[in-house]
C-alpha cells in the first residue's frame, strides 16, 4: 500500500507534495470566506454553496491533483474516509442562529449540519462512488479515520481511498464549544488530504508513489501508546514527511491514537524518487 499524493490547507497557506502556496489575497487575513478562485483556476461551480468545512476539505483534495474523470465515468473502487473532531459545529451554530428569524431554518444550511456532507461533496466533485466513512473520536478523530482508510485499502474493498482530516471552527462557534480545551483557546481551521492506494491502482493511473504505508501490529509498540499525538499534530507530521524535501527521517511512525486503544502503529516509509 502506498501514498501517492497529499494536500493541505489552513489559515496561512495551502499546498501539495508538488508545491506550496500562500493565500492570493493574504491581506484579507484568515479565510473565513474561502473562495474557489483563491486556490484553484479550474471551475467548480458548486463551491459557492458549500459550508466552510466542506470548502476546506474539497480544496485539500483538489491539491491531490487527481485527473478529472471523463464524462460518465465513476470510480466505484475508490473510497473516502473523513475524520473530524468538531464536524459540522460551525454550521450547526449558524443554522440555530438563523432559524430564530422569520421563516425558520435555512434549507441550504441544513444538509451541511451533517459532517458526512463533506464526503458527498468530494464524491460529487470526483465522481467517487465507493464506500465512505466519517469518523469522530475527539482529538484522535483524524488519525482514527486515517487508520480506517488504510484498512479499507488493505482489505481489498477498494483500490484507493481519499483520506481527509479536517476541522473548521471560527470565533463565533468557538464561543459555543462545550469543551474548549482541545482547541488551546483558539479558533482552528485546516484540512489535510492523502491518497492511499494499492500499487496496481497507482500504476494504472500513472501516479508516482511517495511512500509505503502499513499498519504494524507488533505488540511491542504498546509502549508508545502514551505518546499519541492529537489529530492535527499527527497529520502535520505526515504531510511534512511526505511533502518536505528534508529527507533526514527515513521512517515515520504514527502511534495509535488514545481513543483507538490499539497496540498498532502506522508506519510510513518514504520512497525515494529515482
Amino acid at each position, binding site marked *: 500500500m502506498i501514498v501517492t499524493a497529499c494536500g493541505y490547507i489552513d489559515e496561512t497557506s495551502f499546498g501539495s507534495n508538488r508545491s506550496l502556496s500562500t493565500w492570493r489575497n493574504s491581506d484579507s487575513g484568515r479565510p473565513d470566506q474561502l473562495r474557489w478562485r483563491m486556490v484553484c483556476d479550474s471551475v467548480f461551480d458548486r463551491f459557492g454553496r458549500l459550508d466552510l468545512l466542506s470548502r476546506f476539505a474539497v480544496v485539500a483534495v483538489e491539491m491531490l491533483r487527481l485527473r478529472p474523470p471523463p464524462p460518465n465515468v*465513476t470510480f*466505484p473502487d475508490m473510497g*473516502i474516509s473523513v475524520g473530524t*473532531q*468538531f*464536524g459540522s*459545529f460551525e454550521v*450547526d*451554530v449558524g*443554522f*440555530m*442562529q438563523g*432559524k430564530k428569524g422569520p421563516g*425558520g*431554518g*435555512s*434549507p441550504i444550511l*441544513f*444538509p451541511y*449540519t*451533517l*459532517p*458526512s*456532507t*463533506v*464526503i*458527498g*461533496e468530494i*464524491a*460529487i466533485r*470526483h*465522481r*467517487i*462512488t*465507493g*464506500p*465512505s*466513512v*466519517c*469518523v*469522530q*473520536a*475527539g482529538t*484522535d*478523530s483524524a488519525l*482514527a479515520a486515517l487508520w*480506517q482508510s488504510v*484498512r*479499507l485499502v*488493505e*482489505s481489498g*474493498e477498494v483500490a484507493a481511498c481519499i483520506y481527509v482530516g479536517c476541522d473548521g471552527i471560527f470565533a463565533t462557534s468557538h464561543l*459555543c464549544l*462545550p*469543551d474548549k480545551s482541545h482547541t488551546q483557546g483558539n479558533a482552528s481551521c485546516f484540512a489535510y488530504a492523502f491518497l492511499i492506494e494499492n500499487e496496481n491502482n497507482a500504476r494504472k493511473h500513472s501516479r508516482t508513489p511517495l511512500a509505503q504505508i502499513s499498519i504494524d501490529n507488533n505488540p511491542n509498540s504498546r509502549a508508545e501508546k502514551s505518546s499519541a499525538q492529537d489529530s492535527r499534530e499527527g497529520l502535520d507530521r505526515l504531510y511534512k514527511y511526505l511533502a518536505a524535501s528534508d529527507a533526514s527521517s527515513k521512517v515515520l511512525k504514527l502511534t495509535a491514537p488514545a*481513543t*483507538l*486503544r*490499539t497496540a*498498532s502503529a502506522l508506519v510510513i516509509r518514504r520512497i525515494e524518487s529515482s
Partner: protein
Amino acid sequence: MDVINALGSGTENVWAQMMKKTCGITPMRRLTQGLYQTSVSAEIPPDVEDMIRARENCKTNSRAYLFALAVGRQAIRQISDASSDVDMDKIGLILATTKADINEFETIVSGRQGPSPGFSNPGLMASALANELGLAGPVFAVSNACASGLVAIIQAARMIQQRDIDTVLVIGVDVLADFLLSGFSSLCALSPNPCRPYDKRRDGLSLGEGAAAVIVSRETPGLAALGTIRGWGVSNDANHITGPSPTGEGLKLALAKTLNTAKMQPNEIDYINGHGTGTLYNDEMESHAYSAVFGKLLPPVSSMKGYFGHTLGAAGVVETVLCLTAMRHNTIPCNLNFESLGVTRKINIADEHIPVDNLKNIITVKCGFGGVNAVLALSAEGRG
C-alpha cells in the same frame, strides 16, 4: 441486543407492538405543535423514558446519552450473563449518530446552560459511554447521515475481519429536537400524517427517535449468535447532497457488492428491510435499484418507518436489531400504512405480516444525505 423507540423498550416488547400493527407516530408531546411542517412525530413515550431513567441511575440529563447507555448496558449484560469469559478490556465501541445529544447543543447555543459534558459531540459521547460501560477497546463515532447505523455495524465487521479486535458494541442513537424538526421542515420533507412508505399517497417522512445496541463479534464459544453478517456494501451516488440518484445507481452498486461479498444469489434473499422513508424520491429510487438487481426474484420488501418513524443515525442499528428479531420469529413484518403501490417499478410490498417456515437471509438497506447507501446481509445461520 436491545432497542428503545416510540413503541417502547426491549426487543420483544417493540416486536410485539409491531405484530399488533401499532403506529408510534403520534401528535407531538415534547415538541411544540404548530411550529413545523407537521404536528406528528415518533417520540419515546414519557413513561418509558421515566422507567429507563429510574433503572439506569444516569448522572446526566442528556436523553440521548441515557438511551444509548441503557441499550448498551443491556447488550453487555446479555453477553456477560452468557459467558464468564467476557473481557471488557477487549470490547470496542462504535457510536452511530447524526447529531448525538442535539438537545444539549440547543441549550448551549441559546445560552440557557453553563458547562456541559459535551455530549453534543459524537466523539466525546462515545468515549463517555465506553468509560461508563467499562469497555477498553477502540472507541469512536461514525456519522454518515441516515446510514450511520449500518456503516457503524459494517465498520465493526471490518475491524473484526481484519483482526483488529474480536468484539464491538455498536450503539445507534438519535433524539428528536427543534433543530431537526426545523431542518426537515425547511426541506419540506415531513408528512403531516404518519408516513406511508412506498404508498401511492406517500407525502414525506415522519421523524422518530430511538436507540439500539448490537454486539458484533467473532464466533465465540459459549456465546449464542443471533445471526451472522454475511456481507455488505457501501456506495455513494456522487449525484446530489440531499436527493437520491433518480435511477438508483448508487444503491444498485451497494446491493451488488453485498450479494457478491455474501456469496449469495438474489433468489437466496428472503426479505428486504428497505430504507422506505416515505418521501417521493427515496422510495422511487429504491424501487429502481431493487427491481434492477433482483428482477423477477425480488423478495418481499417492507419499511419499518411506519411503526416508529425515521430514527436517523440510529435507524441502521434499530432496524438491524428488529431484523434479527424477525428471524427469530420467522415473520416478515408488514409495511404499515400501505394501501397501494406508489412507485414506478413493481416491487413486492409486504402489506400484511408474512409468517415463513425459515426466515434465513435478510438484506437491510439505509441511505442518507451526501448520497451514501449502505446495505447489510444478515443470515440466520450460526444462530444459537
